[in-house]
């Protein structure tokens, strides 16, 4: 039971909004000590795992080019481009992006889009531009809600598309785990059974995007 103290540390630390890097470090120490590791052993294990997971942070390599195009006015261009198409409202625009993200992820192309390389420079400004074209200058609240919804749409499209691709990490994990338990399964079956959820996810989130669009219009009208 003492092992769960580390989990409690994370929950409390995040709740009181301590710096998360500090919270994670403290939680690692608490967990390690509860499991009977000495502080030095714990630090070694933590350092080793940190080093082995460097690939997680390597994706920031896309930031320089994104910065360069922002410097040259890409966000402004994206906003103006969408405003020219008066018929495109934020709801259908983000539904289109959701479909694009789900389909390409299902084909295994999970890394062709993302928060740094597409949402910040293009999708969020376009979504803002679509709202702006209809309601005029955005309030801070509307701008932030639109940006958050653009990011949420990226995550939902990715998560409920990628599992349809047979060579994605989660499918390989499931195949491996089931095989170790004596159940041999063809990955294609796992992929196919991800489709019903993918469809429900699309319908649910698309519905929410339409409601979101209406809410913004009401807000602007009020």
């Amino acid at each position, binding site marked *: 039971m003492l092992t769960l103290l580390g989990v409690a540390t994370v929950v409390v630390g995040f709740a009181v909004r301590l710096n998360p890097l500090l919270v994670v470090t403290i939680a690692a120490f608490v967990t390690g000590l509860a499991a009977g590791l000495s502080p030095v052993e714990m630090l070694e294990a933590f*350092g080793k*795992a940190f080093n082995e997971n460097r690939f997680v942070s*390597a994706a920031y390599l896309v*930031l320089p080019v994104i*910065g360069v195009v922002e410097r*040259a006015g890409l966000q402004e261009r994206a906003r103006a481009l969408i405003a020219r198409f008066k018929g495109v409202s934020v709801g259908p625009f983000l539904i289109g992006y959701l479909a694009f993200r789900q389909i390409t992820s299902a084909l295994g192309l999970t890394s062709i889009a993302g928060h740094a390389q597409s949402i910040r420079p293009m999708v969020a400004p376009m979504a803002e531009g679509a709202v702006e074209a209809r309601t005029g200058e955005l309030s801070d609240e509307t701008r932030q809600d639109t940006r958050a919804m653009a990011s949420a749409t*990226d995550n939902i499209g990715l998560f409920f598309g990628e599992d349809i691709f047979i060579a994605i990490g989660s499918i390989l994990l499931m195949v491996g785990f089931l095989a170790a338990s004596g159940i041999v399964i063809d990955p294609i079956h*796992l992929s196919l059974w991800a489709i019903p959820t993918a469809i429900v996810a699309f319908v649910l989130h698309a519905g929410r995007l339409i409601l979101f669009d209406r809410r913004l219009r009401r807000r602007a009208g009020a």
Partner: protein
Amino acid sequence: MIKLSAVYVLAGLVFAAFAVLSALDRNNRKRLGNAAFWGLVALSFLAGDHLGNLGNGILVLGLAGIAGLGLLGRGAPATTSAEERRALAERFGEKLFIPALTLPVVVAFGVLVLKPVTIGGTPLLDPKQATLLSLALAAVIAVGVGLILLRQPLISPLQEGRRLMDTVGWAALLPQMLAALGAIFALAGVGEVIGELVTTWIPMDARLTAVTVYCLGMAGFTMIMGNAFAAFPVMTAGIGLPILIHKFGGDPAVVASIGMLSGFCGTLMTPLAANFNLVPAALLELPDRHAVIKAQIPTALPLLIANTVLMYVLAFR
């Protein structure tokens, strides 16, 4: 064969440049904090394999210390003003999209074309890392395209990259730190303890109860661990296999697949999935750190219920 180590050297050099430029940034009161933080990240990428486990542990303490003591500021490299950007946007027109769209094109090319290429029997790209290698290649090519096409200053990729990196700030390292914490949790057997708790205290005689506990458990446990991959083995060994598959005869493919997707619903609702939820909030300069999570919960919760129903209906045909 091109391996991940090549990407690490590149990342190390870029972060080293961020550190040096931070140190020289007189507009940032906390410039030394920024220089030290990005400097440690550079050190980790360039020399992580030679520092030893304890050395890496101390490096992590350094990062957490700098962030925790609030020593990290936000650099202000000289960039174009909002006015200038509007004028530039007018002048360049749709050309502006080309460098940004070079990224997905090169990534797709890497994954679809370069990945299968072999030279004398050895693959050109390390097959396990082909996506990340393609992304790094795409980043380099896109910078070149951007500099030439938009005639931007040579230093601008590094200065503008630093501007964005400072926007994300300490949150940038949180995903990697959480991955390391996951390893410590695994070492201490946190998953097994939680799995035991769930299976001991909740009676699962009815099929519907068992399906519900498994799906909600996957989501809840994913929220605690920040990652559905950590939750899957524990919940499936505890409930999925013995009860849903063996006792009630559920189809393993349906149970596993929809179980994992229930975990993904949890990923949408937790700050511990930092790279999906907190880093974007920082990148989009949202004052509420949890704004993206709040936008996701109303989709994630009904989807979780839908998953439970789908599993109940589809696994026991």
